[in-house]
């Protein structure tokens, strides 16, 4: 019996979520860099406007992997219908359909393509799409692989990044 229901199969290609960030601030960038380089001081281009201005990018930019949606988004203001960490069926619940009902989930892998950098003042729009489901039986039993794609664009509709993640549920 397949883990991919008719409803799930029909949902492939659907938009899962859409969000807009608050404007990226120099403080957000500085704290991200401090945390990811801790306990050493991060490169000056992430916190010193003068040093950053002398770099090829001509000013402070966020590290590529920076997350402008941490803590809170400007939109939407409502909470998602379930917690992605605690609910393995979170993706399907975003679509209002039943999930496969598997108990465990883990991050199987990520890939990213970067466009323009994020700068202070940028507002980032995120659109997450369901790309595909595949299933197989492995040493953990029946396993469902779900690929999602998250596209980030700035206020000028320039692509910031295109990020794919494979979620493994079993």
């Amino acid at each position: 019996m397949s883990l991919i229901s008719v409803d799930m199969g029909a949902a492939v290609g659907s938009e899962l979520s859409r969000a807009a960030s608050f404007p990226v601030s120099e403080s957000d960038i500085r704290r991200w860099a401090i945390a990811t380089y801790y306990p050493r001081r991060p490169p000056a281009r992430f916190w010193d406007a003068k040093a950053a201005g002398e770099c090829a990018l001509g000013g402070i930019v966020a590290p590529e992997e920076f997350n402008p949606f941490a803590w809170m988004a400007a939109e939407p203001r409502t909470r998602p219908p379930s917690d992605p960490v605690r609910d393995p069926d979170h993706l399907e619940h975003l679509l209002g359909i039943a999930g496969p009902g598997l108990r465990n989930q883990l991050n199987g892998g990520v890939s990213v393509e970067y466009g323009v950098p994020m700068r202070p003042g940028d507002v980032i729009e995120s659109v997450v799409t369901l790309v595909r489901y595949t299933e197989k039986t492995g040493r953990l039993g029946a396993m469902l692989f779900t690929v999602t794609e998250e596209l980030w664009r700035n206020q000028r509709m320039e692509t910031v990044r295109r990020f794919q993640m494979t979620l493994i549920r079993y």
Partner: protein
Amino acid sequence: MGTLAERLVVGAKLPPFTRVTDFDVWNRFAAVNYEFVPIHMDDAAGREAGLPGAVGMGNLQWAYLHNLVRDWLGDDGRILRMDLQFRAMNRRGQTVSAHGEVRGVTHGDDGLEVSLNVWTEAVDADTGKAQQLAVGHCVVLLH
């Protein structure tokens, strides 16, 4: 010394990016990424999930690999693409290092593109043994 482009050799290793990982490191990352997940903050929660204790975030290894590549590039280029597969958990007290090596150089539309093998590995504090935690690839564009 010459420019980075002049020094590129297939098989050349990037200077590793290394950190000792424990709650002081993970809590700081949780605070900027809003990643307050019990298995990253509590040994008991990790054991309840079948792990030896609390474990580090995959997103932090992802950040360490970006730091590795950025520190190597300096102002000579930027990251175009990266992918990563997670293979093992980062346990408390492990020394985690991010590594890279040059696998190829091609002339792209916008300049010289360099492909890299990248990976993270951990040295266990008790046994001294190294283990790969995640493996992937990266492509950078040189200015």
